[in-house]
């Protein structure tokens, strides 16, 4: 906007303002009605959905699903969509940071005088694309299966390990068979790639964002061993053998 456009805008604005209605009671009335609706919705949701409180936090293990609030789903999902590990940094921090900076600086690079949405095609297309992308990521994030089931056939001696795995929430980030999420590498055939010791080392000393299971090893070494046995048993052959 150059000086003339600025002046033009201010002049036009002052006329439209002069033709308007006083803030009180017109705008105040609408704002008040909206506030009442807001409060009504909050109370209705509180009564309908209540205040859930799961089992107490236990850093050593047991069932959990590392699920964020719904409005962070798109961030978590972004992580899953961008697969190659050398790009995860981009996913977790790069993309959101760049988007945020673009949002913050919007008034400084979009400087045209035009305000009508239909006459700002680039801005509107960009906005709609962003909203669609975020909505899409949020929805697939929300539909990600429950992270606590393992449905592949498990040989009897590995059954306890499978239960520990299910309870430890590995499926929140890994796929085993058809279940689980794709944030981390697929574990269905991990036994072909990693030995038992390597797996145990990964569990105690993982790369972020995977949490460390050192606590489990200390508190409950037996379960830890079962877990490692089960993961190490995940091989192509074992799947075929049933």
């Amino acid at each position, binding site marked *: 906007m150059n000086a003339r456009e600025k002046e033009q805008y201010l002049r036009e604005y002052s006329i439209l303002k002069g033709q308007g209605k006083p803030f009180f009671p017109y*705008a105040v009335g*609408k704002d008040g009605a909206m506030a009442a609706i807001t409060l009504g919705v909050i109370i209705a949701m*509180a009564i309908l959905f209540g205040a859930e409180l799961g089992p107490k*936090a*236990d850093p050593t293990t047991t069932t959990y699903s590392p699920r964020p*609030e719904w409005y962070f789903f798109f961030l978590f999902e972004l992580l899953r969509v961008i697969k190659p590990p050398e790009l995860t940094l981009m996913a*977790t921090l790069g993309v959101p940071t760049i988007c945020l900076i673009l949002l913050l600086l919007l008034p400084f690079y979009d400087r045209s*005088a035009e*305000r009508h949405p239909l006459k700002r095609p680039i801005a509107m297309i960009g906005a709609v694309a962003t909203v669609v992308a975020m909505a899409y990521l949020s929805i697939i994030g929300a539909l990600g299966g429950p992270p606590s089931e393992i449905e592949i056939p498990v040989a009897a001696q590995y059954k306890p390990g499978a239960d520990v795995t299910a309870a430890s929430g590995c499926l929140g980030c890994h796929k085993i068979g058809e279940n689980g999420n794709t944030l981390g590498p697929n574990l269905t055939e991990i036994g072909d790639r990693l030995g038992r010791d390597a797996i145990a080392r990964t569990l105690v000393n993982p790369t972020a964002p995977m949490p460390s299971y050192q606590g489990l090893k200390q508190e409950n070494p037996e379960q830890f061993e079962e877990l490692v046995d089960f993961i190490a048993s995940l091989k192509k052959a074992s799947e075929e053998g049933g």
Partner: protein
Amino acid sequence: MSKLTPPLPKFLRPAPSRSHEDDGAGEGNGGEPGRAGKVRESAAEGSANVVGWLDERSGISPIVRAQFYRKVPKGTNWFYTLGSATLFAFVSQAVTGVFLAMYYEPDTSRAYESAAHITNEVFLGELVRGMHRWGSTVMIILIFLHMARTFVFGAYKYPRELQWVIGVVLLVLTLAMGLTGYLLPFDQRSFWATTVAVNLNASAPVIGPYLADFMRGGAEFGAASLARFYALHMLAIPGLIAALIGAHLYLVAKLGTTAPPWLKAEKKALRQEGI
């Protein structure tokens, strides 16, 4: 424009002078009204009502009056209520949050128990926790809708750029409230989701590990982390949000809200302005 300003409502008008009521009493003892009488008079007038009392000391009524009766532009519609609705949701969070803080204990061995105590035993506790829990969702939705409104209406353009910038900071802070608050009930879900979120932060380049250490209050996730999240969630972030909302609203009052972009002032009116 000032000619068009409607009259003040009754309660804001200056109280009528009371001196005539006092006339008889003041001069009853035969003397001149005198200094004592005048002082009594002005004292009586000053305390005529609470508004008068406040105004006499603060001189606030012209400001209130200008704000209440300032014009909102032609075409102002329901979409313009989204900002004040966001503000209202924030106030609701603050009020319910204060009640939760009366019972909540930010200690790893007590946090879960106190949250359970609020939910199960405190009178209306589950309702208040539920309102705080779902109020956060409502506030996030409203803030996004408000941002969408100002975007579509081109309201971020001259002269309201600063308002937009403050708005984006408010958005980030509101999301930070969601993140820090999620840990506080200290159940399995909140603990592990937050652990993962902090680990994600740790993978950021350069500042990542420091940021994660700061959030955790050490290398491991535990008591110190809970205390930090509590302090951020209860004091630091809401304080910042309140201050920035103040700045945001100051600009709203100073610049006025936009008119919808599809409204144009008629040529005639523009000419009358005397270009």
